[in-house]
C-alpha cells in the first residue's frame, strides 16, 4: 500500500547508530490510510473545510479581480472623490486589506473551533481503525515505535 522510503527503518541496521538516513517525509505504512480516507470522520472534516474555503476563495477572486478590472477599465470612476479627496479606488483598495484581515481571522476561528476537533477525531479513527479488531494494539510498544524519528 503505502510506499516505504529509505529511513523508514528497513535499512537502518547498516548505518551507524547516530547517523539517521535522510530522504523525504517519514512514512507510516503501519496505518491503514485507505480506510482512514474513507472514514466518515475524515469525510466530514474534508467536507467542512472545503465548504468554508471554496466560498471564501470565490469571494476573494471576485472582489480582488473586480477591483483590478475596475482599475483597468474604469480609471475615472476609481478617481472619483468620496470624501474630501479620498477616492473610490483607494477605498476599494483598503477594502482588500480589510477583507484579507477578516477572512484570515475567520479561518483561524473556524479552524480552532471546527476543523481541529474534526481532524483529531479523524486521526484517532485512523489510528484505532488501523489495528485489526481481533488483535488489540499493544499499549506501550505500538507499531509507531519503529518509525520514531
Amino acid at each position, binding site marked *: 500500500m503505502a510506499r516505504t522510503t529509505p529511513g523508514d527503518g528497513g535499512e537502518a541496521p547498516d548505518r*551507524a547508530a547516530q547517523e539517521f538516513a535522510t530522504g523525504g*517525509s517519514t512514512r507510516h505504512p503501519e496505518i491503514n490510510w485507505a480506510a482512514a480516507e474513507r472514514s466518515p470522520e475524515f469525510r466530514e472534516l474534508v467536507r467542512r473545510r472545503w465548504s468554508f474555503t471554496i466560498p471564501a476563495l470565490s469571494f*476573494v477572486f471576485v472582489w480582488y479581480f473586480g477591483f483590478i478590472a475596475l482599475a483597468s*477599465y474604469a480609471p475615472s470612476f476609481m478617481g472619483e472623490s468620496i470624501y*474630501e479627496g479620498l477616492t473610490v479606488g483607494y477605498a476599494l483598495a*483598503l477594502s482588500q*486589506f480589510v477583507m484579507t484581515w477578516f477572512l484570515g481571522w475567520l479561518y483561524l476561528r473556524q479552524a480552532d473551533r471546527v476543523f481541529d476537533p474534526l481532524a483529531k477525531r479523524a*486521526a484517532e479513527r485512523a489510528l484505532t481503525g488501523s489495528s485489526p479488531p481481533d488483535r488489540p494494539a499493544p499499549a506501550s510498544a505500538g507499531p509507531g515505535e519503529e518509525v520514531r524519528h
Partner: protein
Amino acid sequence: MFRLPIAEVNVEAVSIFAVVLSITLGITYWASKQTKDATTFWAAGRGITGVQNGFAIAGDYMSAASFLGIAGLIFLFGFDGFLYSVGFLVAFLIVLYLLAEKMRNSGKFTMADVLSFRLNERPARTAAALGTLVVAGFYLIAQMVGAGALIEALVGIKFSLAVLLTGAFMLCYVIFGGMLATTWVQIIKAVLLMSATIVLSLLVLGKMGWNPVDVFNRAEAQSQDGHAYLEPGLKFTNPIDTISLGLGLLLGTAGLPHILMRFFTVPDARAARRSVVWAVGLIGSFYVMTTFLGFGARALLGEAGTTGDVDEAGNLAAPLLAQNVGGGDGTFWGDAFLAIIAAVAFATILAVVAGLVISASGAVAHDVWSNVIRKGRDSESEEVYVARIAAGVIGAIAITIAIIGGSDLNVSYMVGLAFAVAASAVFPALLMALTWRRFNTTGAVTGVLFGVISSLALVLTGPDVRSDPLINLTQPAIISVPLGFIGCFLGTLLTRPEEKAESGFDELYVRSQTGLGAEIPLEGAGLTPRPRRRRAAAAATTTHLHR
C-alpha cells in the same frame, strides 16, 4: 541608473549598519552552536512559534522591492503603485487556505517533499527542485543587484563592494547558522522595518496636520499629472497586463519556495496557520503605510524626484522622504533618519537573500543530492555538509552575475519573472498533488516544465527584454498559469494512472488534512524550553504514533 544623493561615505549609516550586523553575527554564532543536525539546519528544529514565524514570514517576504520599490512606484505613478501592495497581501489568503497547514503536515524540509510524497520520487523531485532554483535564482539576482545599487547610493561605497558585503553576510548566516540564524535575522528585520515605517508614517502624518486624506490632496497638487495621479493608468495602460500582474502576484506568492519552506519551522499545523495570520497582520499594516511613504514622498518632495534628486526607478523616494521629515539635508535628524532608513533597507535585503539562498540550497542538497543522486542513502551530516557547499556555490554565482552585470543589469523583469514561474510552475503542481487523486508523475513534470518554459519564453520575448515583443505582455501570468495547469492535466490524462500515486494519495490526503504522521519538532528546539504541557499539545496527533 542611480543618482548618488551622497558623494562621500555616510558615516552615520555605516555605524548603524555595524550595530545591526554585529547583532546578526552574534545570533549566527549562537545558531551555529545549535545546528548539529539536518532538522535544525533546514527547519530550525521545528521550534519556531507561530508568532515568531509570522514575523519571519514578513521578514522573508517584504523585500527592498516592497519597502523602497513600492514607495517609489507610488511616488512616480500614484495609484498604480498601490496595486502591488494589494496583490502582495491578498495572496496570503491562498497560502493560508490551500497550502500553509498542508505543507507543514506533509513535508519535511522542502516544498519538493510535498510534491514528490506520492509520486515517482526522482522525476518529481527534480522538477520541484528546478522550479525552486528558477524562482530563487531570478529573485536572488534581482535582490543582489538592487542591494548593490541601493547601498552604493545610500552609503557611498562602490557597487561591487556593496554586492560582495551583502553576499558575504548572507552566506555567513546560511552556512553557519542555517535556518535558525536566517529566521532570527528575518524576525529582527521585520521589527526594524515595521518600526521605521511606523515612525516615518507618523512624521508624514504630522506634516499633514494629522489628516490622512490630506496626503492625497497634497500629492495631487504636487504632481504634474494632476488628478490622474490619483487614478489608475499612469503605469499600467494595458488592462490585460494589469489583470495578468494581479494573477501573478496572487498565485505567485503561494509558490515562492522560500516562503513555503518557513512552514516546516513551526511545531504543527496550528502554529503554521497562526503564523500566516500574524504575517498578514504585519504585511498588511506595512502595505497600508506605503501610502504615507509613497504619496507622502510626492506631497513633501514634490516634483524634485522626476527632475533629479530621486532616481528614475523611484527607489530613493523613501530615504529622501526620511531625510526631509527629519529636517532636511545637512540637519542632524535629517541625516540620521536617512542613515536609519539605509540600515533598515540593508537589513531588509539581507533577510530576504538569506531566505532565498537557504531554499535554493535545499533544492540542491536535500532534493537533488540526497534524494535524487544518493537516493536517500546519505547521512544527515553529509546532507548538511552538501547544503553548506551548495549555499556557497549558489551565493558565489549570484554575486558574480550581479557584479559582472553591474548596476545597469536590467533586473526590473526578474522579480516579475520569479513570481510568474512560482505561480505557473510551482503552485499548480503543488495544488494538484495535494488535491487530485489521479494526478501522476508525468503530470507533475509536464506541469512544472510548461510553467517554467512558458513564463521564461513570454518574458524573454516580451516588451521588457525586446523592442519588438512577440506578445505585448510584460506580465506572463495570464497565459503561463493556465498553461501550467494544462500541463498538469494533459501530462496526467495522456498517461496511464499510477497505482502508487493513487494509493499514496490516501496517506498524503489524510496526513495533510489531519496532521497524523507529520514530522515532529526536535526536543528542546526553540528559543526557550517550553513547558511539557504545551509541547504535548503541540504534537497532539503525532504523538499517538510514538506511544
